[in-house]
């Protein structure tokens, strides 16, 4: 959101949106959708893989965001970070739920995050592209970031899953995030 408009203007619209949401202004949710749906939908899709499920998760997330908005604290972080976490958690809960796993019970779910690395075909060109980002990460780093971010694993769980020492996982995760942070600077 911050790339096409100057940082301050983006911040201003975010502050206004937060204010309207805090005032329980239902119209604000339309603005919210227009502003965030692509980013949220993209990440949800990356996790659940199926369009109709992604749509359900997005809607559930919006309901949750609306209801738990009073607990959002702008001091602690950007609205984007908060809503992205809500969506990510719902999507991860979804793929971990029993219903979702029926039929693929023999495959560990980690497989979905670890192996299916295919890049989404459409990412918005005005942003730092997925390709550009992932090209900067080596495969091990990307695997770890994806397990952590899209798989909802803790670093210890990743270590166990990949059969690596915890220290190695931490080092790789830090290195990967460092690469990403250099890209957005």
């Amino acid at each position: 959101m911050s790339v096409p408009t100057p940082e301050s203007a983006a911040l201003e619209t975010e502050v206004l949106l937060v204010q309207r949401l805090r005032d329980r202004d239902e119209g604000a949710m339309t603005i919210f959708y227009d502003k965030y749906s692509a980013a949220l939908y993209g990440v949800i899709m990356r996790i659940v893989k199926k369009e109709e499920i992604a749509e359900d998760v997005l809607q559930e997330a919006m309901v949750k965001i609306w209801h738990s908005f009073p607990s959002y604290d702008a001091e602690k972080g950007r609205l984007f970070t908060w809503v992205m976490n809500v969506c990510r958690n719902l999507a991860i809960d979804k793929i971990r739920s029993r219903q979702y796993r029926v039929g693929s019970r023999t495959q560990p779910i980690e497989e979905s995050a670890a192996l299916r690395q295919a890049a989404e075909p459409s990412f918005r060109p005005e942003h730092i592209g997925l390709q550009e980002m992932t090209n900067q990460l080596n495969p091990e780093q990307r695997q770890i970031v994806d397990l952590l971010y899209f798989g909802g694993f803790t670093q210890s769980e990743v270590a166990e899953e990949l059969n690596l020492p915890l220290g190695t996982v931490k080092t790789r995760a830090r290195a990967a995030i460092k690469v990403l942070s250099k890209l957005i600077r």
Partner: protein
Amino acid sequence: MNVQEYIESGILEEYALGVLNEVERAEVERIAREHPEIGRELDSIVRSLDAYAEAHAITPPAEMRDRVLQGWQQAIRETEKPEPSAVSASNGTSATTPPQMVAVTSAPAAAVPSPSADGAVVRQMPAQESNSGRTRWLIAASVALLVLSALGNFLLYNRLKETEANLEVAQTEQSRYAATQKAALNERDEQLRVLRNEAFRAVELKGTPKSPNALARVYYNQQTKAVYVDVRNLPAPPAGKQYQLWALDNGKPVDAGVLATATAAGDSIQQMKDIASAQAFAMTVEDEGGVASPTLSTMTVIGNL
């Protein structure tokens, strides 16, 4: 505290990834506020992951917008409805309670004909209040119990459904397994019938000098002309080749059919072509599908009746 050590512990990444619990989160936030260096690091990590998330953006299909916004609105209407109805319900109970209280007040008032009126009222008030408080508490408790029990039923019902579904899967699997086993058993019975039948003569086919370890057995029924072959050990045929069985009748080779791969591997007994008369049997390696006359140089096993 060692700032660098804390940064390298990986906890900031876990915070940003959302895997910490409430207490741990609050602790990270407190430490980040106290140490600007940690705060900056945390901010940078959060932004990096946000950017990574954004890089995955996919504009949802246009027709989704109305669906999701309408679905959202409907959902929040539905969740908001119970609240007003709960309020009206409690209004309802408080509306029905006062008449009871009036009845209660009127009874002692009638029983005690005008004592020092002030004292009576003062004494009765707390009793009424605790009484209605208890009623309200009892109603709240029973509503809570009802909700809990409904929730419990719902969970149990879901679990029952799940169990039923699992059972169905298991039963299907079991009957499929039984069917396969039965088919296999029938096949074995058939083979046993052949082996036990006295009319069948077993012919040992021994390896030729070319493959001395090769060994097979032919069961030949001279009355019904049926021929079965049972392989003990044959070298795997080259690609594109198959074993072919020949009956030798007065020195003349008669085609008895080719061996299926499973037969050649020794996995099962195979019925071959009927043979009118034979004094010996032999096997050669031929092109797939078999040939009209044997290639003698590839003869692998041979045996006399």
